């Protein structure tokens, strides 16, 4: 008898542009004590399945076919009231963002007791005792006192533990977890996954975990179902799917996952989802505008040298200086970047890595320290005109492709803006020709110029961002988490593009990421940041094989193991 059986499920979303089939004939089963992973990229329909199982499909979504059985009882046909009684009692749910999943105005005790009492009818006293017990089980220290606290008094990781306690509080038989660790840092992700796996095995609960992250799949699941555009393309044991996938989509997906253990030359076969922008018309850089005028003078000494950088933010403003509460987002950071290398900066959220990047390109003014670029301290420059000379040689690519382009401007104007501002081309016609060439060069094609950003996918937008960054003919490119908002196969395409451009144009790069495997694929040397401080700078191979700092070792240990992933068809780079 299956614990949970999703049978030929079909879900449709009628819309103005016709009906979208979000889930198409999907059949899945979960056994007691088993963790089933549902993996897929955005738009695959995986979250919709979770919502449909607990009967909370968002309108206008509609189940138009199939059934859901819990221990052979059909639950999709029950009355709304009967469905409600199953939620929480038989099926628990965990959502992605712990910061918004809890009612901010009630103590966690009120929320736990309310739910326990509702389902188990234990009475106030026993419910409270059970609530404390649950908090202890999910690893919250000092539960007797912490239970009186409000959600905002817990950190993100602790809040996700509270959410798990809430999902578990009536001893459900099935737990559906929708991207439960996506909003968390790697170190906390590892702890939460470990907790979920242990609870699942101890209590013989069946778990359906929905994720886009192969690391999560490798860490926690027993079996995996792969979804692609609403369809189930492949299902099997985790070892089989990761190590020897059958379906071409799964193969493509696996090969696009950045690996912590080896460094690849390029990501192969990543054009299953979105035909990789074909870079058909490559420019002859020896004669083209983009390649010309690259005859920069060779640099004496380091290309970039940061000395004792400090950035202070005011967290509690006050009129009098000594009343202000401040904290150092970046605290005494120094490192050099050599010409032509890709320097990686890695750390968890809030470690100050993005702040360093923003100080280098003058978005922030450092509280102290020097930013030496080509031997000039940028912090000392007073006139904007003089600064423009350095700005032109230094560009940045941002994280979020949906906010990094002005939605009110055509792609032509977006990319032409830097060329016009720095007067890098003569006539308007010349500017337009350059923009078209740039679009070709990043694999978008010239037709993109007349369209608006919202007409493009995330990956395409990131290509536009890259074209805009290239439009000043920079020699230094800062990439701030350029792929962390993208699906894994799109990420692979963009990383390939960045690698190619770096090689062609001899760019120097600062590559910022929270993702160690991505860093391994991209960088020559790496700096590790923790709470505003730089704890280690090493060559990439040394960092991964031979970490010096304790914190680096810790990060590497917590990184999901992907050793079981298939290496077939991959070209490993020897260093």
């Amino acid at each position, binding site marked *: 008898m299956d614990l949970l059986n999703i049978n030929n499920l079909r879900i449709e979303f009628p819309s103005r542009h016709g009906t979208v089939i979000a889930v198409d004939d999907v059949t899945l089963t979960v056994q007691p004590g088993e963790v089933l992973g549902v993996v897929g990229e955005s738009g695959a329909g995986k979250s919709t399945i979770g919502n449909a199982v*607990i009967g*909370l499909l968002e309108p206008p979504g509609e189940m138009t076919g199939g059934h859901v059985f819990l221990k052979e009882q059909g639950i999709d046909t029950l009355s709304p009231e009967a469905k*409600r*009684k*199953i*939620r*929480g*009692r038989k099926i*628990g*749910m965990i*959502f992605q*963002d712990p910061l*918004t*999943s*809890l*009612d*901010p*105005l*009630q*103590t966690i005790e009120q929320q736990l007791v*309310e*739910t326990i009492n*509702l*389902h188990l009818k234990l009475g106030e006293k026993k419910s409270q005792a059970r609530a404390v017990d649950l908090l202890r089980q999910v690893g919250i220290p000092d539960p007797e006192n912490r239970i009186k606290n*409000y959600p*905002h*008094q817990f950190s993100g990781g602790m809040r996700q533990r509270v*959410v798990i306690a*809430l*999902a578990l*509080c*009536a001893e459900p038989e099935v737990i559906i977890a929708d991207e439960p660790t996506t909003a968390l840092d790697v170190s906390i992700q590892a702890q939460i996954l470990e907790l979920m796996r242990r609870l699942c095995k101890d209590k013989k609960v069946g778990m359906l975990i929905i994720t886009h992250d192969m690391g999560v799949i490798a860490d926690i699941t027993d079996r995996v179902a792969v979804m692609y555009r609403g369809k189930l393309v492949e299902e099997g044991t985790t070892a089989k799917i990761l190590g020897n996938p059958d379906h071409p989509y799964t193969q493509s997906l696996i090969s696009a996952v950045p690996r912590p253990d080896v460094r690849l030359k390029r990501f192969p076969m990543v054009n299953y989802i979105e035909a990789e922008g074909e870079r058909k018309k490559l420019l002859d850089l020896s004669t083209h505008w983009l390649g010309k005028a690259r005859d920069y003078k060779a640099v004496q000494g380091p290309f970039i040298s940061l000395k004792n950088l400090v950035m202070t933010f005011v967290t509690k403003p006050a009129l009098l200086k000594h009343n202000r509460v401040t904290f150092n987002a970046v605290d005494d950071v120094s490192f050099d970047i050599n010409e032509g290398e890709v320097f990686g900066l890695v750390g968890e959220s809030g470690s100050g890595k993005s702040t360093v990047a923003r100080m280098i390109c003058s978005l922030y003014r450092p509280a102290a320290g020097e930013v030496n670029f080509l031997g000039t301290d940028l912090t000392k420059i007073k006139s904007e005109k003089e600064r423009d000379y350095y700005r032109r040689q230094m560009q940045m690519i941002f994280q979020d492709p949906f906010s990094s382009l002005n939605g009110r401007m055509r792609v032509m104007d977006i990319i032409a803006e830097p060329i016009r501002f720095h007067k890098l081309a003569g006539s308007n016609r010349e500017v337009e020709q350059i923009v078209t060439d740039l679009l070709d060069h990043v694999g978008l094609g010239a037709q993109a110029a007349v369209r608006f950003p919202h007409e493009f996918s995330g990956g395409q937008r990131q290509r536009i961002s890259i074209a805009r960054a290239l439009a000043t003919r920079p020699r230094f490119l800062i990439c701030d988490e350029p792929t962390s908002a993208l699906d894994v196969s799109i990420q692979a395409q963009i990383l390939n593009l960045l690698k190619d451009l770096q090689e062609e144009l001899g760019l120097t790069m600062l590559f910022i990421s929270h993702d160690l495997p991505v860093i391994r694929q991209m960088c020559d040397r790496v700096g590790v940041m923790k709470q505003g401080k730089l704890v280690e700078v090493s060559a990439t191979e040394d960092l991964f094989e031979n970490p010096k700092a304790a914190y680096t070792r810790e990060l590497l240990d917590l990184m999901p193991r992907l050793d079981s992933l298939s290496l077939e068809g991959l070209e490993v780079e020897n260093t």
Partner: protein
Amino acid sequence: MFSFIFKRLLQSVVVMLTVALIAFAMFRFVGDPINNMVGQDTSQADREALAEALGLNDPFIVQFGRFALNAAEGDFGFSYKYRQPVSKLILERLAATLELSFVAAVLTLAIGIPAGVYTALKSKGLLSKGIMTLSLVGVSLPTFLIGILLILLFGVILRWLPTFGRGEVVALGWWTTGFLTASGLKSLILPSITLALFQMTLIMRLVRAEMLEVMRTDFIKFARARGLPDRAVHFRHALKNTLVPVITITGLQLGSLIAFAIITESVFQWPGMGLLFIQAVADVDIPIMAAYLVLIAFFFVVINMIVDILYYAVDPRLRVDNA
């Protein structure tokens, strides 16, 4: 808690001083105060003596300081038109305005908030759609027109209710109340409905919008996913979270009732401060205008203090941040 209230008090003082400065500037620089006090035939010497006596030749800051101190004691000088102390004129009319505003405020909250909650929860229902459409008509009807229509219907055509004045009032010390007589209560009905209607629709629409916003949050979705019944989700979780933003705006709206009373009072010839003020505007009776401005600001500051304290009580996030 103490430092929080102290900070708010300090802000209130700053607001009051700013408003007092505006009021003083109006008093001092709009028209010539001397000309407004004496007749045409007063000699130049007498005028100068009066100016000296009133301290109009003192430095600006001294004059403002004196004005502010006097104002704090309730002394706003003499009305140009009535030749009586402004404080006396206002005090006589204060009770009328406050009683009217109070009844209107009760109506606004008692109907506006439940209607807002109802239309948010049953947003697809026929009754909700009806209420929403009516509320749009409500915000589109100028207050004075509502008054005129009510007068036409209940006063002129049906002849059920009085259409002007307060009816019989009972004096309780300096306070006169219309709550204690039948005619006083009857007289309150039309003006208070007129005054409440616009604010009511605003509050209702606001509560509805905020509630719909809260209903879309993750924690409501999570509450549903835990199997909580609708009642608990709606009232224990959604409504309380709705209240946080609603309290602020409600405070502001209730404060503006007192000022909006200007229109109602003038339609119903209600003998309150608003009527006094509108006549002062027409006659350019600056001392009354200045005093009214300061008084309204004072009411707002008091209401804002209450709102802040309520806020503090409802939202635990504030309590910890300020502890």
